[in-house]
């Protein structure tokens, strides 16, 4: 296999690691989004309860 491809497996590994890195980064962004969504929901509830009090 290596005869035909001439160390192409190195490139394949590099690409795989880049992709995995990007995917992990996506997970990280999603975690941040989760947190933001939670915060916004809390803020909305606060607003609602303020309105009710008034």
């Amino acid at each position, binding site marked *: *296999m290596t005869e*035909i*491809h001439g160390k*192409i*497996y190195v*490139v*394949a*590994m590099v*690409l*795989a690691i880049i*992709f*995995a890195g990007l*995917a992990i980064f*996506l*997970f990280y*962004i*999603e975690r941040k*989004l989760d947190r*933001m*969504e939670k915060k*916004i929901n809390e*803020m*909305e509830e606060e*607003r609602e309860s303020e309105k009710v009090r008034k």
Partner: protein
Amino acid sequence: MPNKTWNYTWKIFTIVLMLYVILGGLLFEVPALPVIHQTIRNIYFHVGMWFSMIFILFVGFLFSLAYLRTFDLKYDRMAFATVKTGLIFGFLGIITGMIWAQNTWGTYWVNDPKLNGAAVGILVYLAYLILRASLDDPEKRGRLAAVYKIFAFVIMFVFIMILPRISGPSIHPGVDGNPALATGDLDPMMRRVFFPAILGWILFSWWIYTVVERKDKINQKINQLNADQL
């Protein structure tokens, strides 16, 4: 929470699938072909861009229909997010296609119904962005944008499906009216990577879309909270 587990499961599955596609796509044997040589491996990546784009834009078409039925702004936001995501994949598809074409056909662009169809598609969705930008009222913006999107999508679909059939032999593979997919003459060796590649890219594009949509949703809510405060 089963919902949360599922949420992680399909994403991990997508990643595993894509890793298989990257490794298999570069390492597995491919048939020896004249002119194209090793670049045939591009089929796992370049064609994946087109499938993702068409998938995402089709979902967006359904969202636009849903908006016109319900006038729920949620669907308008979702439709908008599909366009943003679809355009990313569309541009990547065009750029990768141009690089591939330059190195095999010797030119960046050929006058071919499939390439022209792709270019028209991208122009339509850029026009959609401009249309949205020139309207302020969210309800009206959603309505006009949805109408244009549905109108344009159907007309584009007709062009992309019919034009290649009647315009004779094309240099681009997959002439039988099915854009980009040439399963008939795809080597069985390549199918074991090709089909997972398509599925992997589609799932991946859907993942990106969900991130874009959530970002837009948060943005919208922040704007709303700010507006309420005033």
